[in-house]
């Protein structure tokens, strides 16, 4: 698959007409959040799914992007929209530094180190009041009252992110990433610098996550360290989006993002008010159960194991196990 097929434009077109067809701001909001998660999940997937470096700390980049935008207002006195320009690069710089520190560790050690760095960032942002206002958080004024501009901005960012990752994984870099994932030592012995390509992967990944963070600041107009640097609500959620959609597949995280956000919202609102209120308390429980089921029965996620799923109701010949990857 060298050129992207035209059929891939179908979801893009559908998403583009969505806010015109649907007038409700509530549903637009859900879709904006889902598009933001498309960006974060896809970025996480580039690093974890393609390069094999499972990060438990993507909140670092998300938070850095969000705070870059926020600090533009509180410290520099310029519009938070500058954050959309600065958030990505700043997060990417942070990513490079973290990579320099953490990439000397492998496998589960790397995952642990990212948790630790993430917690340091969260605590740091809480404690350093002069810069970040601490737990008070940063409150700005939204530029638009309508959701439409935010929606299209999110759509553009999400489309750009997925397209960029598509280009990356189909370039020489992408093959090097997969080589590092499959066998780091073998890749090294073929002359691929594992450190260099892990860093490049992290660079792209943290850039887009930072961009999503800056978007979040502009859209939600309020951030505090417990939200944007949260281990559970950002870092783990990014992993869930990735593994439920399908690790190491281009379309996995976008699918995962919509599933997760819609599911979260369905439960949070107790099936849009149709079920008793206590159902709303169960949304994290459902996430947990979903993770268990997906890991146990669909190890490559919904997209990666799609042949296996479709086989359930089309009783054809058993397919060979899906070789997900690039």
């Amino acid at each position: 698959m060298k050129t992207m097929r035209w059929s891939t434009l179908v979801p893009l077109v559908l998403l583009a007409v969505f806010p015109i067809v649907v007038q409700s701001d509530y549903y637009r909001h859900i879709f904006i959040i889902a598009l933001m998660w498309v960006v974060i999940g896809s970025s996480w997937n580039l690093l974890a799914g393609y390069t094999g470096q499972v990060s438990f700390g993507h909140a670092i980049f998300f938070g850095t992007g969000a705070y870059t935008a926020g600090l533009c207002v509180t410290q520099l006195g310029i519009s938070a929209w500058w954050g959309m320009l600065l958030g990505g690069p700043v997060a990417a710089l942070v990513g490079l530094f973290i990579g320099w520190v953490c990439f000397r560790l492998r496998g589960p050690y790397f995952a642990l180190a990212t948790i630790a760095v993430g917690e340091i960032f969260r605590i740091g942002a809480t404690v350093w009041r002069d810069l970040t206002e601490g737990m008070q958080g940063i409150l700005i004024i939204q530029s638009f009252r309508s959701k439409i501009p935010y929606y299209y901005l999110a759509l553009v960012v999400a489309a750009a992110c997925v397209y960029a990752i598509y280009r990356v994984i189909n370039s020489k870099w992408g093959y090097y990433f997969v080589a590092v994932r499959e066998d780091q030592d073998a890749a090294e012995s073929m002359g691929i610098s594992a450190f260099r390509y892990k860093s490049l992967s992290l660079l792209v990944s943290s850039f887009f996550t930072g961009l999503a963070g800056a978007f979040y600041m502009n859209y939600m107009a309020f951030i505090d360290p417990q939200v944007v640097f949260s281990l559970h609500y950002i870092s783990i959620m990014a992993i869930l989006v990735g593994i439920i959609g399908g690790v190491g597949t281009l379309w996995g995280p976008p699918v995962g993002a919509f599933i997760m956000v819609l599911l979260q919202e369905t439960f949070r609102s107790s099936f849009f008010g149709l079920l008793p209120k206590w159902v709303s308390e169960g949304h994290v429980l459902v996430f947990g159960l979903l993770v268990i089921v997906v890991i146990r029965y669909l190890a490559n996620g919904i997209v990666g194991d799609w042949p296996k799923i479709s086989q359930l109701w089309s009783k054809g010949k058993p397919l060979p196990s899906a070789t997900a990857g690039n």
Partner: protein
Amino acid sequence: MEVFVQTFVSGILIGGIYALVGLGMTLIMGVMKIINLAHGQLMMIAMYITFVLFEQLHLDPYFSLLVAMPALFLIGAIIQKYFLNPLLKVDSILPENQVLMTVGLGMVLTEIIRFIFQSDYKSVTTSYSSEFIYLGEISFNQAMVVAFFIAAILTLLLFFFLLKTDIGRSVRATAQNKDAALLMGINAEWITIFTYGLGSALAAAAGSLLLPIYYLFPDIGGPFTLKAFIITILGGMGSTVGAIVGGVVLGIAESMGATYISMALKEAVGMVIFLLVLIFLPGGLKAWTKI
């Protein structure tokens, strides 16, 4: 000077309990080679068991060890048998599958408890919770001292078990080399189930011991999972002696951080140590102690 000694003493006392958490984690890590990200959550379950026993039957938290430990042993064994072992047969891109599974399990455990008990803070107030023993200028919290000694006894029992009994030797053999252990006729799968149960039971003990001096809410698991692997990394993966040293070091570092830097940064102290160890001393203290 008194403040320093006082800080040091309370660090060591809490460190004894941390060591128990770390020991459980280290056993699981040694045998299964995975990070158990549900460790703190298992401890949290034990704390709730202890809490319920105290509320309903007025059972002393220290006696409820006898209930909480077997209960958690069972839960741990079930997790290993039905959730983690089957994953060995599943083909997937990410080798961290089992770790991600423990994340899911941790979430489910936390949420089930939240469903039952709500998010409120709970605590167990015993007659000795705020009793102090004085030794010169230094005060010892009675509950902490008792907890420390029970933790020490449990640790000694664990060492006796690992060094002197057949099952203990099998556990160590499986940790050293699973394939060789299999060839020696050890049922490695059974050993993994047993070890996860044992690790959970140790976490349960730490939970019950901690309850009289701590408070309780469903999200308490996460921070303790983090503490558990700080300890494990500090001590060196799979090293039991290291876990004890790591637990005590973390206890001292946290209480020093709380006294001399700031209460808010207490948690960050652990993280910074963790990172420094990961980067500069990847083998943990094991590199020095050689055990």
